[in-house]
């Protein structure tokens, strides 16, 4: 298969995934037992202490259906959605926070989510794989068992427990970090950047600890298996050093599934980290998505899910395209 055919096939698959994903995204919120108009009215009603008259509710209901674009048959709404999303990349206004634009809400929140999750995911991946590699390569040594024990210990701890424990330890018993950080606003200055990093450290540490264990265990298992491969044995007999065998023979081969896992987890970070946001009062897209799901805010869900689909599908495409560079066997085929 030529390079062009290889790329074209992968790209075609990518477009098909996007189309199916967007179609499912359109349908899913409409299958929820929530009517966004009711969601909005309920929200207003609960704030009105009985002062919302039936006449007003009736009028709001009629107006909101028009404003939300919920008039007309579902196929027309679907075509309009595809046109808006695919051609204009416009998700319209949020229902819950009408008339705020979904794109504005997402672009305000997303940098925070990406900044935290991207850094934490990569650090957890790097650290986990390094520790896992050493634990796997030297799996017969006592020290390796201790490293594996760290992974076994961390991996099953539910994130919530981990987060609250870290918070208690480092923000309450030893108040090194703020319990509930206040992120600075306005023009960005170096001291403010420092404050943002300081305020983000605690959630980042928790996310690294939570992601760390799985990477240790999976890399360790891969490294153990790879260490037994004939080519590693051959390298040892040839006189290659431990360092050379571990990095050039074991690590490179054990790395491939880990790269796939990293790419997919990078795609998933667009979903945000709801628990992190709630426990650490950290800004981000997770809470926006949750509010949208509970209030039937279709447009916000479309915006956030579409972004996530794009990220995961693109990560898959990139992996597909760079795999031949990492793995000569695929390049050969």
């Amino acid at each position, binding site marked *: 298969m030529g390079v062009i055919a290889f790329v074209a096939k992968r790209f075609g698959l990518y477009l098909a995934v996007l189309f199916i994903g967007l179609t499912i995204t359109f349908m899913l919120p409409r299958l*929820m*037992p*929530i*009517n*966004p108009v*009711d*969601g*909005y009215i*309920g*929200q*207003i*009603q*609960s*704030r*009105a*202490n*009985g*002062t*919302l*008259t*039936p*006449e*007003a*509710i009736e*009028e709001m*209901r009629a*107006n*909101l259906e028009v*404003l939300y674009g919920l008039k007309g048959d579902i196929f027309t709404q679907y075509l309009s959605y595809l046109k808006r999303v695919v051609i204009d990349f416009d998700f319209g206004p949020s229902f819950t*926070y*009408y*008339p*705020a634009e979904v794109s504005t809400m997402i672009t*305000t929140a997303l940098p925070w989510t990406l900044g935290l999750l991207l850094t934490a995911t990569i650090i957890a991946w790097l650290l986990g794989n390094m520790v896992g590699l050493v634990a796997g390569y030297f799996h017969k040594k006592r020290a390796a068992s201790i490293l594996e024990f760290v992974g076994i210990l961390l991996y099953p701890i539910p994130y919530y427990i981990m987060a*609250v424990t870290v*918070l208690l330890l480092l*923000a*309450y018993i*030893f*108040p*090194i970090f*703020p*319990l*509930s*950080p*206040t*992120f600075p*606003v*306005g023009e960005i200055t170096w001291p403010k950047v420092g404050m943002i990093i300081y305020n983000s450290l605690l959630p980042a540490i928790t996310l690294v600890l939570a992601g760390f264990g799985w990477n240790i265990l999976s890399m360790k298992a891969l490294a153990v298996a790879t260490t037994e491969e004939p080519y590693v044995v051959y390298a040892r007999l040839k006189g290659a050093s431990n360092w050379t065998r571990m990095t050039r023979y074991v690590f490179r081969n054990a790395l491939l599934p880990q790269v796939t896992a990293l790419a997919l987890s990078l795609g998933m970070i667009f979903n945000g980290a709801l628990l992190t*946001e*709630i*426990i*650490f*009062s950290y*800004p981000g897209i997770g*809470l*926006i998505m949750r509010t949208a*799901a*509970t*209030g039937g805010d279709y447009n916000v869900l479309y915006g956030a899910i579409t972004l996530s689909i794009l990220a995961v599908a693109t990560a898959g495409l990139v992996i597909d395209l760079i795999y031949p560079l990492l793995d000569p066997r695929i390049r050969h085929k």
Partner: protein
Amino acid sequence: MVRLRRTLVASVIGAMLTTTAIAQTMTDVGTPRDETLIVQTFDGRAANASAQNPMNAYAIWRGFRELGWSWLWEMDTATGQSYPELAAGPVEVLNDEHTQFRVTLREGVYWSDGVEFTADDVIYSLDTYTKYRSQLGRVAVIANFVTSWKKIDDFTFEVETSRPSYDFQTVMGVYTWGSQFVIVPKHIFEPQGDDVVTFQNTNAVTLGPYKIKEFDPNGSWQLWELREDWERSGWGNLGEPKPKYVLYKDFGAEETRTLAFVQNQYDVDTFMSPDSIQAAKGRNPNIESFSPTFPYHDMNDACSYGVYMNLQRAPFDKPEVRWALALSLNMQQVGISSMSGQFKAGALPLADTPITNPLYYAPLQSWLEELTLADGYKPYNTNFGAELTEALASQGVDASELPTGDDIERGFGMGWWKHDPAEAAKLLESVGMKKGADGFFALEDGSPWVLEFVIPGDWNKVIQRIGFSIADSWRQAGFNINTRQVDNGEWTTVQNTNARNELMINWSQSCTYNSNWQNSWRQFDARYVLPPDSTDPLNGNFMRVTDERIFELVADSAKLPTDDPQFLENGRSIAQHLTEDMQVINLMNIPTTIPTNKTYWTNFPKQDNFYAAPYTWWSSFKKTVVNIEPTGQQ
């Protein structure tokens, strides 16, 4: 080497702790802590904090309602009486039909940008509310209420309403916690032209004595600063607000909030669970609940929790079935298991507060005592509070924390229904419903009767817990209950849709705050009744009342002033009809915990110092900021 390392570590930690200690004298937003009142936000974190146009949905929370906007008339939450704020006095009624009114505004009131507030702002607001009523999300009530208006002079305007209105002041002003009519500054909004419908109004110009100093675009916090010219603000005549700054901040999940509260990081919380308050009080003596004795918390919300049944659907269309459900409900057990006994029961379909008690509860107490069902059974238990006190004492609650004498009624309510499953079974049998082989009550034809009980999910944990306890109580009595938790969007759909509604916890129609019961009960009208299996949305009457006697009382009362004795008498009659046929099972007042921390500020509203409702998200909070005092703690 080890010693050196220990010294270094100790120095670093010491330096960090010292830094923290010094930083605690200033807030995270750079204001002196002793000049800043810090309050947990009611709505958590907002997704679009920059949207501050009050004619759309946002700009209610985090200080807008209580510190930012200003109303024509405000509500004194200690007495239930309306008083003028931007208006110079009570509304002047111009015709016998009560549809034409004249309002005179106070002179010398200025917006936060220094422009004078006049009738032009009111007229522009009314023009905009109606002209763009189909595009603005929060104007429907007022757009429906007014039909015409005109400026008389700079400080006088007249309004004509679409219906006879004896409650003009509480519709155009505040009934409980804020007004539907937010007046906007003409000089800011008018230049927007038609774009006013999408105008964000970021850094809003406001009328209250505080102005926005800074806010987090990610919605975690908002800082208000006292205006230098606070005396000429919308409610500057109320007195000098004590804090120079008020910071609304979301301190996160309840676990984090509790820890931050113990560390004196903020002064007033919203709905903290009784368990967390207990834990916080144990670690910080400055943390106080609303009352030092049971039920500890504020019970003066305008609404009350109740079980709403779809009265139009069998078998809930039978009073015997509804009474059976009420008498099977072990309220003492429900209150203890879900609220640790920290609740105030009420048998009438409204909250029992210091305002409503002398109007409804006390006058109807003897009627409740004599109330008799068709079989001669008297269901009311006046001894409910005393029995609850005994039960709590037997569970180890210290006697000093339990109310005694008249305080029992004030704390736990004047009574509730007896817990009598045997009488419930008798009532059900009287309409042909008996227990089947599975131990559960069956329908008249012997087929299984599975009741779907809808309760809120995690978005309202207090009522979620109460809901599960009620279901447990009913199940023990032989009702096959299927409890379904739903998100708030679905909850509203279930409330609004006959075909999907059977049995749910609700509070939306029991918000009678004072002698004017119309806000909640005006909806008892044949216009708001749909067929039992209708999938069309209801716009009112969520209790599904079809009682003609009640419809007539509502219609007759529309022609009466709300302070007319007959009007109040009609309200009591509605309450009696709803109760005698058990058209709603009223449960309890809405418990609002509102713990405070007196490290930096003191004299918050409390049970024994009730100068205003203690809620930081009601507009009555303005009385709190005027009455609190700094402790001098730096």
